[in-house]
């Protein structure tokens, strides 16, 4: 497992000008996209995936991860300046960041957000780098039966935690699995749900489905909201006290416990599939406030509030690669697209990566560390530029983003079918959003569907088509029981409690 020459080769391949350039571009793109309210890093990643086909696997994955890392920092900028989070995970940042801005300290708040993000992200990456290889050794002991059961558990956890209805989450999962069934079936090679189209032999293209559901669906929702033409008034005072324009070492050091705690919360949450950066930020904010000697100052411009939220939501980024790299299971949409990109590049995600793709994995770790440093540098110089970008009206931003999506999918799918599919899925994505169906389980089910089917088929062969054979696989049995428990606890029980509280409220 620890092949040091290969590890060194991987790290060396990360620290090349080629990878450096793409990581820099990814970080800048992520910060830029994150700074625009309504656009988010996962949307940027979805749009960017098709453009990475021509890159080497390491460069492509490093670029996508860099976009994700930059996005968490960019999201804080409009949260601080205009009280509108650029991405959902920055919502908690606005609680104290915007009051700081109103007190004439917008640059200090943005810089604290930047430093906290980089701190949280770096700590999380250290955990990823140190624990993922040992976890992969354990994961390698699992066979198809255990992996199929683990995927079932992951679907149960994700649908239970994402969105406000497990039933709707499971419907979205079922729909994602159905879409993954389109194309030649992986076991027998017969066409399925293709309606005679040979262009769908390889299944529905990830770029069309992902960009349609995630990016264009959201773009449509924003366009029809009727509020996009309004520009945002961003005012950064020019003649500020220098102390209000920077974060001193004393101020940063005073937040060390807050940062450490937030990084631990973010890392823990990130390693769990389905919970996400938004929950991590609010958990960290709530806990920091409860532990503070002056809780009343929170919500009124306390710098610890900014540190707690930004360190936590950024710590999720590194940690959510733990289940991805060790088990091949994505914890969120960003990870799902990274899995999709790995598959497109002919790399099978999962614990075998640590055996067969050592240079790629350690190259990626090297690129992640590089991305953290570049995030800090780009952020230091770019904060004011991204703040100006937040001024652009949504009517222009979303129209142009739509054009990018159409262009990208046209080029990658090589024709009109891909674009038509993208638009069709955009309509579905829009309806899912307004009707309260989370798109996260759909995307994850779509990306994992083929692998899930293959593992189920292999498990069935191993079990000789006898369900009782499962008793010989106690780990798989445990995963399945945990999945059933999740459905009860996060779905049935939660729904009953909501109904009881609605009835109590009405009486």
């Amino acid at each position, binding site marked *: 497992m620890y092949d040091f020459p290969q590890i060194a080769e991987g790290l060396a391949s990360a620290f090349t000008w080629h990878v450096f350039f793409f990581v820099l571009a990814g970080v800048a793109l992520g910060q830029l996209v994150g700074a625009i309210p309504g656009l988010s890093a996962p949307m940027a990643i979805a749009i960017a995936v098709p453009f990475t086909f021509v890159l080497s696997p390491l460069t492509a994955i490093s670029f996508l991860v860099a976009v994700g890392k930059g996005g968490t920092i960019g999201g804080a900028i409009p949260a601080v300046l205009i009280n509108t989070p650029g991405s959902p995970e920055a919502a908690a940042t606005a609680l104290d960041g915007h009051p700081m801005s109103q007190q004439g300290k917008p640059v200090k708040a943005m810089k604290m957000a930047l430093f906290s993000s980089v701190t949280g992200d770096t700590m999380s990456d250290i955990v990823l780098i140190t624990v993922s290889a040992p976890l992969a050794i354990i994961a390698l002991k699992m066979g198809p039966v255990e992996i199929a059961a683990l995927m079932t558990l992951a679907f149960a956890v994700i649908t239970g935690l994402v*969105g*406000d*209805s497990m*039933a*709707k989450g*499971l*419907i979205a*999962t*079922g*729909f994602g*699995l*159905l879409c993954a*069934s389109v194309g030649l*079936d992986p*076991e*027998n090679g*017969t*066409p*399925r*749900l293709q*309606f005679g189209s040979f262009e769908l032999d390889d299944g529905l293209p990830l770029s069309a489905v992902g960009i349609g559901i995630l990016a*264009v669906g959201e773009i*449509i929702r924003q*366009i*029809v*909201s009727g509020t*996009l*033409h309004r520009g945002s008034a961003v005012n950064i005072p020019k003649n500020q006290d220098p102390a209000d324009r920077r974060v001193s070492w004393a101020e940063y050091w005073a937040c060390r416990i807050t940062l450490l705690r937030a990084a631990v919360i973010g890392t823990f949450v990130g390693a769990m599939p389905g919970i996400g950066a938004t929950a991590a930020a609010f958990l960290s904010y709530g806990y920091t406030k409860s532990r503070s000697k002056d809780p009343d100052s929170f919500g009124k411009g306390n710098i610890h509030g900014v540190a707690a939220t930004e360190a936590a939501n950024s710590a999720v980024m590194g940690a959510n690669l733990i289940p991805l790299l060790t088990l091949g299971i994505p914890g969120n949409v960003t990870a799902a697209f990274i899995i999709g990109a790995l598959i497109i590049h002919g790399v099978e995600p999962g614990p075998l990566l640590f055996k067969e793709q050592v240079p790629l994995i350690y190259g990626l770790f090297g690129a992640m560390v590089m991305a953290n440093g570049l995030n800090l540098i780009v952020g230091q110089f770019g904060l004011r530029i991204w703040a100006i970008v937040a001024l652009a009206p*949504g*009517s*222009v931003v*979303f*129209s*142009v983003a*739509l*054009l*990018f999506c*159409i*262009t990208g999918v*046209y*080029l990658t799918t090589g024709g*009109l079918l891909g*674009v*038509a599919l993208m*638009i069709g899925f*955009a*309509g579905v994505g*829009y309806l899912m959003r*307004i*009707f*309260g169906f989370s798109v996260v389980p759909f995307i994850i089910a779509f990306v994992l*569907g083929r692998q899930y*089917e293959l593992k*189920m*088929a292999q498990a*069935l*062969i191993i079990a000789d088509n006898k369900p009782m054979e499962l008793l010989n696989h106690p780990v798989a049995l445990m995963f399945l029981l945990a999945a059933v428990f999740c459905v009860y606890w996060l779905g049935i029980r939660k*729904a009953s409690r*909501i*109904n009881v509280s609605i009835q109590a409220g009405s009486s």
Partner: protein
Amino acid sequence: MSMSLGRVLGAASAVIGAGFLFFLIPWQTDVVPAVGLVPRAFPTIAAVLIIVTGLAQWIKPTGTAIFEGDKVLKAVFVVAACLVATFALEVVGYLYTAPVLVGAIMLLSGERRWLWYIVGLVVMPTFIWLVFEIVLRRPLP
């Protein structure tokens, strides 16, 4: 969420799932002798999952849902405009279609400032065309 809308969504999901289970999957899959999973097994599992959870949602609606007719109508217009633009791409070309699409969407969004129209209609489509056609050498229609 109104309880009725939640029920309608549950029932609609179950009907769609049933449509797949009883009509589309048998029609669009082959019957072959298989050792592991037969070709229709996996989509069948997905359809059954949709039906069961759709019925659960119908019986006990959960979650939020908002239906605003005027916005849905606008969304239908955006989807239709995108489809028309897609087919126009191949007929009249990228450089003519892209500004019209962006302009239509900006107009629908309520944008009335002409300066931003220059950015949306001229600057950005030209920039995208230059990036793909000239820099990346990926031909656009």
